[in-house]
């Protein structure tokens, strides 16, 4: 069974159709890159998979491990193992990162019928992961993402990915706003989390990110559809030729 099956998905936002029948299959352990020009519907796809309100699915379906994802609330999707790394992670003043991480992790565990993680076990886990991502401990005591640089915010997303251990990670424009060093640290973090059980969907406008996170498959999106799929070389081709050839597809 595929991990994620998006079948002929049609999505509207305020009466305007953004996705016109998108199909995508992701199996366990695979890394997929979704590329495309601005406005092609890449971020819409990531938002619909995560369950963001404001999108109306008019046709098609999304199955996650065979279950209808569209029937689930965002928090149920998270507990099942869907993780969206946000393009623009929000700042939450007054909620410390540590409190947020523990509350979220325990909410997911509770939803899965698991026991809550005891504080010492949790702290140990956070310390290990944050060390490997070069996240200083005092950052964890600050409000979620408050005063964080772009790179720190993205590393905080990767930290959550490592803690929550999802089976599907969707990285929405992870490279936006990052310089090359920040990008490398975040990408190294993502690569360390890749496993035969954990799949990644990397959404990006530029080929650059794919130098660090090497995909098994590349899909080109244009005007709300996947117009071409191929191996990793397709990304390099796109870098040469640009998206123009697909704009009229």
């Amino acid at each position: 069974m595929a991990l994620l099956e998006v079948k002929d998905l049609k999505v509207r936002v305020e009466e305007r159709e953004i996705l016109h029948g998108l199909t995508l299959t992701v199996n366990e352990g695979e890394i997929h890159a979704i590329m495309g020009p601005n406005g092609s519907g890449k971020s819409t796809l990531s938002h619909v998979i995560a369950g963001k309100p404001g999108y109306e699915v008019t046709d098609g379906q999304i199955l996650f491990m065979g279950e209808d994802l569209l029937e689930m609330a965002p928090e149920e999707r998270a507990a099942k193992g869907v993780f969206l790394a946000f393009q623009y992670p929000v700042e939450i003043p007054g909620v410390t990162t540590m409190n947020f991480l523990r509350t979220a992790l325990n909410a997911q565990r509770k939803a899965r019928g698991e026991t809550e993680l005891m504080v010492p076990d949790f702290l140990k886990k956070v310390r290990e992961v944050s060390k490997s991502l070069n996240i200083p401990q005092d950052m964890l005591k600050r409000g979620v993402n408050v005063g964080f640089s772009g790179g720190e915010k993205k590393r905080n997303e990767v930290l959550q990915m490592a803690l929550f251990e999802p089976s599907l990670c969707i990285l929405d424009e992870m490279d936006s706003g990052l310089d090359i060093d920040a990008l490398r640290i975040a990408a190294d973090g993502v690569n360390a989390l890749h496993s035969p059980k954990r799949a990644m969907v990397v959404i990006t406008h530029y080929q650059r990110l794919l130098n660090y996170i090497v995909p098994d498959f590349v899909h080109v999106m244009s005007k709300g559809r996947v117009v071409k799929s191929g191996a990793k070389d397709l990304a390099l081709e796109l870098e040469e030729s640009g998206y123009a050839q697909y704009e009229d597809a």
Partner: protein
Amino acid sequence: MNVAVAKTGNGRAVSDLFTSAEGRLPGSPSVIAARREAFETYERLGLPHRRIEEWKYTDLRALVGEVLPLAANPDAAALKRAADAVKAHAIAGARKLVLVDGVFAADLSDVKALAAEAGFRTSRETLEKDAGLLTTAPTDAVISLNAAMATDGVVLDIADGAQLSAPIQIIHIATAASASAFTRSQVAVGKGARATIIESFVAAGAKAYQVNDAVIVSIGDNADVAHIRLMDDAPDAVNITSQFVTVGANVKFNVFNMTTGAAVSRLQGFFTLAGEGSELSVNGVNLLQKTEHGDTTLVVDHAVPNCVSREVFRAVIDDRAHSVFQGRIIVRPDAQKTDGKMMIRALLLSDEAEADNKPELEIFADDVSCGHGATAGALDDSLLFYLKARGLPEKQAQALLIQAFVGEAIEQIADDDLREHVIGIAERWLERRQ
């Protein structure tokens, strides 16, 4: 000659309230005369209503209608219920002074332990001799009513230089349904003293009761005082409290109010900065739901130069509840170098929730730094979605954001244990919502 007799909604004459209570009110004949005069003022003015500017958003005639008769003295059964309430609401380590239905309950209080560190008398004892306790300025109808009807309270005298080893907790407990309790207390803090005073308002099974409380506070030079008020009355109760505070020079005074109960509540605080170099911090959180009406009205009067005042208030308003915040900062002509700031934020959790924020600055000096801000809004959808995408169910995501919202005001409580206690009250309120 026909004299029109003012009647309440139930057809009772307003004057019955006083005449039926008179025999139980402490005081020498001169004190009783002062009370009668205060009652006549109340009778003439009646309950405040929306045409009186200060009460525009809290129309007691519409919201309360009638002042209920004085509660009976608590009997053994009432005191038993009160004892249970004391256990539930006592703050660990604090010295308790307990008032049950407006009457001091010595057996439930820690008078002996307290007496070693501070002077203590009941208001009843004080009023037997002297009407001074009944005089306050400014005044309005509810304060006059309090002066007329106050049955008891506590009078604390903290000596110059005293460093209290434990907080004092005044616990007001209501056991009598459909009755009123009137209390009036006085706290005098001496020069250089350090003290923490906590006031709690709770119910022990009583419903639909009314509380009218007044507290007169004076703080001597160089004192360091914290005053925490926790209003957690029954959901159908009425609580009107008036505070009159005079602050000396080089004082640090930190006030915090938490409102989590009562159908109708108003805390009106009148603060006068009468000595230079003092820092006054008045903060609070109102957590309102159903049809609750919670009003915080503050007047901070900078009468002398070089003082700092800060007000940080947060209101969380659910269902059809209504929050009112009125904050006035007065800077007298001589009060140069005043630094006065006020920030009130309201969080509306439902379309029918209402917040009225009215900041006012009256500045008569020219070299001052004063400012105010007021906002009202809903929870941020993008924050809610982020939390839900990380596995938090809607109500839990809301609770986390609400805690963060009120946290900014609660952070102003310096004492770690008290701050944790207040956070606990907010958490329990949020759990009840779920």
